[in-house]
């Protein structure tokens, strides 16, 4: 329990989350919350896309609040060692790119310790990455939870196209763009 959970435990537990939501009449989709947050901040004044009754999405904001609490509980009380046991080849590749904490921590130091706030490159990675995730998720109509898990489980072709897109984007970033920036 205190060690990382293997895929054959984690994957089925994610299915459990999706099915539980279906059984209480809700749909699994995390990126919808980003749209709701825009609406709460008044984005409806600028675009029709944000003009909807956000209170109908209140349940999903509660789910995401729970996720924050879950992250706190898991890292503080359910983990003895959070280092990630990566493939040794991936570790040496990452270390050659300057990610020295690969294999020894949960997240790369330069991106997720407070030093990131004063490191322009790290800040840019987080800003551009975040922008693309938010923009792309809404453009594609869903993210990993809505398309990759729910949509594929429901055998929906649009979700398969979106997931293929996720992988094209990810592979291009890691194999072609990373070598240019690291």
């Amino acid at each position, binding site marked *: 329990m205190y060690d990382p959970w293997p895929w054959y435990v984690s994957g089925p537990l994610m299915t459990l989350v999706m099915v539980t939501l279906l059984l209480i009449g809700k749909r699994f989709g995390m990126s919808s919350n980003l749209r709701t947050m825009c609406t709460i901040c008044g984005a409806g004044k600028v675009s029709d896309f944000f003009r909807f009754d956000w209170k109908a999405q209140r349940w999903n904001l509660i789910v995401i609040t729970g996720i924050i609490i879950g992250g706190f509980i898991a890292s503080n009380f359910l983990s003895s060692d959070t280092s990630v046991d990566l493939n040794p080849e991936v570790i040496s590749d990452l270390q050659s790119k300057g990610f020295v904490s690969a294999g020894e921590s949960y997240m790369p130091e330069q991106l997720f310790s407070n030093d990131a706030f004063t490191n322009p490159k790290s800040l840019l990675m987080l800003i551009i990455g975040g922008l693309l995730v938010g923009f792309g998720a809404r453009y594609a109509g869903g993210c990993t939870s809505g398309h990759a898990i729910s949509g594929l*489980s429901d055998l929906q072709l649009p979700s398969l196209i979106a997931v293929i897109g996720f992988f094209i984007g990810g592979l291009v970033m890691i194999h072609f763009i990373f070598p240019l920036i690291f």
Partner: protein
Amino acid sequence: MRSIIYLVIGIFFGIVLFKSEAASWFRIYEMFRFGSFHMYGIIGSAVVLGSISIQLIKRNNINSFYGESITISPKERSVARYLIGGILFGLGWALAGACPGPMFVLLGAGYVPIIVAILSAILGTFLYGVLKEKLPH
């Protein structure tokens, strides 16, 4: 009462995302390098079990606990929006190493700089809303 159920589901999902290491930047990098079966196993087993569950729900006409029928509305037909949107999402997923769920897990786990990615993701969503009519769908 229902609010407590949503909160418990969220806490459970947050713990699963953290403990499965699906919220680790390194695991996402490793996945796109095809360095380990781990992430493929998580997504693959979730989808296989998920599709069996949804088939069972559909074939047995199972209703939700509150008596409503369970229907997953089919997505509108298009290739452009899913492919282009998907590619943009994938570029960001690999760069920030986190998708929308894990971003909030990392916030709770105390990786404070993730707040930059979360605010940017909200801004990205806003930009989509503003540009929506001008984009191919």
